[in-house]
């Protein structure tokens, strides 16, 4: 015998009410959005200085003039990012793994890794850029690069590796000890347990915070400008200095945003896919 579902009157009534509720929330959302946006736009346009601000920050002509140079500069930012990021990932994981070593033989390495993360997380990135960018060439050592782009990139790597290492370490610590016990009970050494069981799970878990750090690194590539290379911010500065108009800065900002927004959506996509793969279960 098969039982087919015939919707009861009670259920029909319930669905009608839910539908009405849904319509009401939709219109409430629409109205409040229109009101909020309207107020902000009105406040902006009504402010006495708006015509001046529009001319100084949102001038179409200034944008068109500055765009080619700022865009060219921005390619250098992207280049710095693309080179620094993989190196940071590898070094960060390395530092995190060093801090997880338990054998007394490795004490110096462990202590060094801890000292490194403590110190470099604390130094403002801009100071590090100055220290490496101007300090290293001043040493006048043979064979040490003195190209400001390279030195700036090294400064960024030094700073971000310490953050990424901590992200990896928290990911590794978040894997339940029973996973380690299961791996060790099968005869896997500490190294193989980390490599095949703990780190793969930890990396999956820390992808969202890592991408957050990527976005941060992307914009901090602008700090390399302090050493002189003609990247996006520097180009914008030059244009602004020539025209007394700040629109080139807004242009640079738009380019940075244009890169981080797709990455944020990509993060969401990865997270959603991971959730689907787990089959909705925990």
């Amino acid at each position, binding site marked *: 015998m098969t039982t087919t579902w015939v919707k009861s009157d009670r259920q029909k009534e319930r669905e009608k009410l839910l539908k009405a509720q849904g319509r009401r929330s939709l219109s409430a959302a629409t109205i409040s959005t229109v009101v909020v946006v309207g107020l902000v736009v009105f406040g902006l346009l009504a402010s006495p200085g708006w015509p001046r601000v529009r001319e100084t920050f949102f001038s179409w002509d200034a944008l068109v003039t500055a765009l080619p140079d700022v865009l060219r500069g921005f390619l250098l930012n992207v280049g710095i990012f693309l080179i620094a990021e993989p190196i940071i990932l590898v070094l960060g994981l390395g530092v995190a793994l060093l801090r997880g070593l338990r054998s007394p033989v490795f004490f110096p390495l462990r202590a060094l890794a801890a000292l490194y993360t403590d110190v470099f997380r604390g130094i403002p990135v801009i100071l590090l850029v100055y220290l490496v960018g101007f300090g290293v060439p001043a040493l006048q050592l043979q064979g040490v690069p003195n190209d400001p782009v390279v030195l700036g990139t090294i400064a960024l790597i030094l700073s971000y590796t310490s953050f990424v290492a901590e992200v990896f370490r928290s990911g590794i610590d978040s894997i339940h000890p*029973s*996973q380690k*016990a*299961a*791996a*060790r*009970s*099968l*005869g*896997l*050494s500490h190294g*193989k347990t980390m490599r*095949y*069981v703990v780190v*793969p*799970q930890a990396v*999956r878990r820390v992808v969202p915070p890592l991408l957050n750090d990527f976005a941060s690194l992307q914009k901090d590539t602008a700090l390399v400008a302090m050493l002189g290379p003609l990247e996006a911010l520097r180009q914008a500065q030059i244009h602004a200095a020539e025209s007394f108009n700040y629109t080139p800065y807004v242009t640079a900002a738009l380019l940075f945003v244009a890169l981080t927004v797709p990455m944020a959506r990509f993060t969401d996509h990865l997270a959603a896919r991971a959730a689907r*793969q*787990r*089959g909705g*279960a925990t």
Partner: protein
Amino acid sequence: MTLLTIDGVWKRYGEHDVLKGVDLTVDTHEVVCLIGASGSGKSTLLRCVNLLETVDDGAILLDDVEITDVRTDPDDVRKRIGIVFQAYNLFPHMTVLDNITLAPRKVHGVGRAQAEEQARELLTRFGLETKARDYPDRLSGGQQQRVAIIRAIATQPRLLLLDEVTSALDPTLVNEVLGVIRELKESGMTMILATHEMGFARDIADTVCFLADGVLLERGHPDQIFGAPQHPRTREFLSRT
């Protein structure tokens, strides 16, 4: 032939003595069931045998070689002893097949093709051949625990430890796991089980040991332990289960 000797093993956590000088010998092909209330030390004893816990006193010998010697390589011992946990502890990021072949490939140096062939044979033997490519969380608890048992025996251990392997399962799934253990006994596997399934223990065990507060109070043939327990605490425990 004696496979495992536990000699006066003592284990303490902080101020609490979990094992107070436990002695036990296990022969090859023997199935030993540890029974006793939660907290009596059954799981700790198994974890000591697998060297997941270090003993605070006493010794454990496998094939007449002391494995609790501080100079032994624990990885070398664990290659010969398998353990199955109450919570399965499968690796969630690997397929069933990869879970099973990880240790043969990475610890025992078996080639991928051969390891997978052996894994598929085991999966077929225990009715899980269609699950090879699935991830663990797509499986029911009973299926996951059967995979965990297969993973533990894929390296052909000399001894298999089972730590309350049915405690996390609902009653309808318990039997499929117990069926696997029964088949392992028929194939001659030496096993130590910590269990709350008294009927199963009586049925499958060659020897039953009753633990209470870290002391092995009574050991004997299942008929004797369940039929005519000698120690008053054994009688009291069995009357409550």
